[in-house]
């Protein structure tokens, strides 16, 4: 199974760029994941101020550019890992050299998790 680990750093956007020490510690952690054969993908994200939001409601589509005033929890990056159980993913998440942050662990849907009619709806051919 695959799990997404979303990192929510508990920092203000102006402190978004991590220090060299933080990066070094995180690189060691990422290397551990890689050496354990579990790491499928990872990325760090620019702050939301540089991003945009596209929202949909009954009036149509609205695009709002950052920064966003009401942003409380913002994603700073993610890992996509392969793990044998949720517990294993959680154990790996808890080994992250994090400070003042939250990592949310979520299982990725695989096609086989869906009922047959949903699987068929996904077919293009």
């Amino acid at each position: 199974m695959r799990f997404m680990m979303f990192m929510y750093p508990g920092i203000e956007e102006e402190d978004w760029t991590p220090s060299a020490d933080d990066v070094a510690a995180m690189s060691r952690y990422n290397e551990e994941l890689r050496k354990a054969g579990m790491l499928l993908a990872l990325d760090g994200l620019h702050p939301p101020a540089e991003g945009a939001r596209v929202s949909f409601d009954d009036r149509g589509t609205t695009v709002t550019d950052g920064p966003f005033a009401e942003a409380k929890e913002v994603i700073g990056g993610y890992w996509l890992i392969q793990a044998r159980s949720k517990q294993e993913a959680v154990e790996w998440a808890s080994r992250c050299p994090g400070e003042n942050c939250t990592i949310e662990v979520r299982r990725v849907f695989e096609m086989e998790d869906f009922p047959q009619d949903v699987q068929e709806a996904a077919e293009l051919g």
Partner: protein
Amino acid sequence: MAGEADARVAVETVWRIESARLIAGLARMVRDVGLAEDLAQDALLAALGRWPQSGVPDNPGAWLMATAKNRAIDLMRRDATFQRKGEELAREVGIQFAMERADFEAALEDEVGDDLLGLMFICCHPLLSPAARVALTLRLLGGLSTAEIARAFLAPEQTVAQRLVRAKRTLRDAKVPFEVPSGSALRARLPSVLEVIYLVFNEGYAASSGEDWIRPALCEEALRLGRVLAELLPGEPEAHGLIALLEIQASRSSARLGPGGEPVLLLDQDRSRWDPLLIVRGRAALQRAEALPGPLGPYGLQAAIAACHAQALRAEDTDWIKIAALYDALSQLTPSAIVELNRAVALGMAFGPEAGLELIDRIAGVPALRGYHLLPSVRGDLLAKLGRGAEAGAEFRRAASLTANERERALLERRVTEVEGRRQGSCGP
């Protein structure tokens, strides 16, 4: 009670993550894989007794290692007192020295890596049968229980348990050194390690039903081991070739079975269901293999063939000329009737059915292909393309009589009607 169950799960989770490194580090010290596993198991029991109350320590791997090391020292001292053999004493001194040196936390990363590699090579030692190698690898490197291995291979648990005991005894009796072979010895032993990982993958991949979780888990474990191996042996093209092949094969796992669980042929698969992430990973691994000096090995070539398929957005976009050339290289490296059969298919697609048929007719008499349903099936397909419907029908009929798979037989019988119907119904070009 719930708390205790949770604690147990926590310990087992840590075990899954740490056991291979633990056993590997211990095996280097005590030079006996079976003993190393026993010591690691003792440490696991100690953790199960302790952690539910104390909580999981900050560095559980180091805790398990320290506990196991203490057990090892006790055991060796007693051993030496009783036996007073020079060899044992020397061994004890060696162990003490190794233990002082090998503070687990401080151990150089290289050393941990070397230990893991050593464990991989010893689990896949050529002295052991392939079945024993697979079982031992899943047990010691994958942290799977005997019951899980038995379930994965549809074998009685007792059989797997005996296989494991015998394998460890064989290694001990033969005094197989715990080491990473180097140079030409490494090249000679690597195929056995690659083969085990490939066998584990295929065992999971061949399953026709996705209901049992253990079989997809085998594929994932093979992928994991393949990635670990490629990290540990970055200079070995075949380590990258194998993981490239596995990642690309795994990318098709959602597309290769129909709604009724029937296999869907590669060219008929819905390619939008192929996993792009695994394809990207597979191609990156293949590029690493290609960037190393020397030509691609058998796994690298198979990965390159798989990558050709992965690259084609539609089946008709497939670069069959390149695939035919890759099969040609593969058949020179590892000549086999099955490779030739695949090459005939590729030749037929690349240069027209006559080219494929010519090769098929050359290999038709090979004993390895006698009774193999794919031979008449491929031949029938080529004949049908040439408009030789009657001959094609006969081949499909023969193929249908040879296959043990119900669904495949139905498919082949349908083709019989197709080609024979076409012959009778249409006189046009």
